């Protein structure tokens, strides 16, 4: 594809053109069938009318008006943004440290890759199990509360450990840190070690090297990881439901409640709004760093 685009003089039906179109077609078809088509249906339904559980194909903006004018929408987004921000900070700090350790401190490359694989071990069980395993730990009669009470630090079980923002964020961090580690690990691995010598020779302290050499060179990893984490949290419904003990609603759980009584057009409009907001967020993140440039450029 790259080769084709560089040969600007090539005619429309040159063999290179045909080849690149042939290469692109399968992916394009898959995207068309499994992304574009379902989205088109959602978009169409979002402007339909409905009445007493019946969806009527007649154009209306009422669903959007109802979604956008409700202060529920605002409070749901604020909740999710708050959770996303907290999760983002934690996963970034942990993910960055883990990746840095694996790349810069483990000298043996084989060991580093081995440890990297160890990071994925929790993913050999299902999301649900990893999340639910927190319940017996954090509960009123859970391990932490029992231990603290036995030691005498507290006399009443701490309620905020479970069914709170705390437990939700802990689960997110547990579930999603790997998505931060992987791209950052990848970006760090690509840094030329001679740069560190150069920085050292130029008199940079460790933290200065980190701040002025490593950080700029791992921006693409951070950005990719951030996109994963933020979109995963914003689109989540199950973790919030279980770990907040159902005391918190998310953007998607509100959609689920709509769908449970067949209010499809309203849910479709919410989905369209969520997609728009996420697209804007991702676009904003990408404006900070030209990821494509970072990934393609050779160092």
């Amino acid at each position, binding site marked *: 594809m790259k080769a084709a685009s560089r040969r600007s003089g090539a005619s429309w039906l040159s063999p290179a053109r045909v080849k690149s179109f042939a290469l692109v077609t399968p992916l394009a078809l898959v995207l068309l069938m499994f992304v574009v088509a379902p989205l088109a249906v959602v978009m169409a339904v979002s402007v339909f009318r409905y009445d007493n559980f019946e969806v009527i194909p007649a154009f209306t903006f009422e669903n959007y008006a109802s979604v956008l004018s409700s202060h529920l929408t605002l409070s749901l987004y604020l909740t999710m943004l708050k959770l996303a921000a907290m999760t983002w900070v934690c996963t970034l700090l942990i993910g960055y440290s883990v990746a840095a350790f694996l790349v810069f401190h483990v000298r043996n490359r084989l060991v580093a890759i081995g440890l990297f694989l160890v990071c994925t071990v929790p993913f050999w069980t299902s999301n649900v199990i990893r999340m639910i395993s927190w319940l017996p730990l954090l509960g009123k009669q859970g391990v932490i509360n029992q231990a603290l009470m036995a030691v005498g630090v507290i006399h009443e079980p701490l*309620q905020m450990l479970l069914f709170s923002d705390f437990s939700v964020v802990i689960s997110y961090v547990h579930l999603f840190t790997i998505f931060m580690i992987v791209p950052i690990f990848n970006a760090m691995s690509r840094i030329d070690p001679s740069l560190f010598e150069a920085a050292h020779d130029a008199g940079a302290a460790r933290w200065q090297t980190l701040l002025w050499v490593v950080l700029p060179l791992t921006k693409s990893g951070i950005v990719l990881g951030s996109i994963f984490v933020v979109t995963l949290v914003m689109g989540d419904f199950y973790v919030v439901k279980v770990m907040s003990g159902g005391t918190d609603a998310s953007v998607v759980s509100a959609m689920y409640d709509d769908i449970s009584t067949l209010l499809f057009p309203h849910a479709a409009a919410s989905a369209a709004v969520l997609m728009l907001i996420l697209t804007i967020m991702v676009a904003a993140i990408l404006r900070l760093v030209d990821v494509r440039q970072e990934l393609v450029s050779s160092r």
Partner: protein
Amino acid sequence: MGRKRLSAMAPGPTRRGLLKSAAVLAGATAGSGAIGGFPTIWAQEIKDITLRHIGVSYSVVQAIGDQAAKDLGFKVVMQNLDTSTAITRFITQPTSVDIPDLEGWQTKVAIARGILQGIDVKKIKQFDNILPIFTKGEYDGKKVSRQGISPYEAMYIDSKDSTKIVEGVHDWMTFLPQVYNADSIGYRPDLVGEPITEWKKLLDPKFKGKSAILDVPNIGIMDAALALESRGDIVYKNKGNMTRAEIDTTINALIDAKKQGQFRATWTTFEQSVELMAAGEVTVQSMWSPAVTAVLAKGIPCTYAPVNIRPDGKEGYRGWCNGMGLMRHLSGKKLDAAYEYLNWYYGGWQGAFVARHGYYSPVPSTAKQFMSANEYDYWYAGKPATDVIKDPYGAPIAKAGSIRDGGSLIERFTNISCWNTVMDENQYMIQRWNEFKSA
């Protein structure tokens, strides 16, 4: 409710039970000839028929389907979907379903869409033995509550292919009631320290941070309404179909309570409610009767609060009922088989099966034949157990001498305050309910 739980427990048939089911099976086979008017080739011809029964896990149960297939001689495929996925499937792919599992509101939707055919009451052998709660909306001459969508409310159409539900008793049923119960509050007597018989306890500051409410908006709001009525905040015209003002009052009260830290959690599934209670996270919550049984089976004390309607109209249970419909595409032998299947449900085996979970059959008289006298008296008649009562896995859940909370079937069902429903102001209600959740 967990499918695994239910299917694992085909109750070990006693000798007595086996003999009886053999007798009933013989009866059913003999009867089938009369119904379809088929001679002996019937058994040969139905062998290749497969009925697809689709719906929620607590109503469409594999073990029941297996037994029916064994007794009837044709195949039955059970598939579990949650309520909304199920009705969506019925509407969008009607020919992929034969027997839809329906609650009142789903029946209303399905009938209006013309995807069902009426059930001929003349072909339902036990029709006259169905409790009049369902067929006439009354018991012993006393009217049963019509708040929400009562089974009777959605029961009849006046011709086989009608798309309009009509009032009064007619020859065509929309759905055949199959399993039902009355929901109430569950509590931990060891942690609460007082008997609970009123819904307002859900909102009592004494249980601050220890109470939970059901988070299925269209029925959770009725639990909240029962609590507010109980506390004396408001009297609803129809808890099952609130006005916007009533919805606002209800949700605002819930938000106030939540801000004061009243609710430890909300729950959406059977298992969640059991875990909350068993782990001691919550001491009082809206709860389903079999969930109470499940907590008891873990050896943890749990009581299902009897909330009989008071003379001033406060309290009462929230009732629900699932039944079976006939999809419009059924015809010929397959339709005959479907009628056989429907009739089989009233044969008694299923009534005994669901009773051991704490549910009921609309035809208790046949269920009785498949239970020991002790079991029937305990589960259906509300009498003291004469021997240990066991759950379907054999775990003891009640000692000799104990009485089922809430009393007999009749006592419960003459004390229904409202029925599961979807309101006219459904979308507004769901939006406000989510405001409560995110408050």
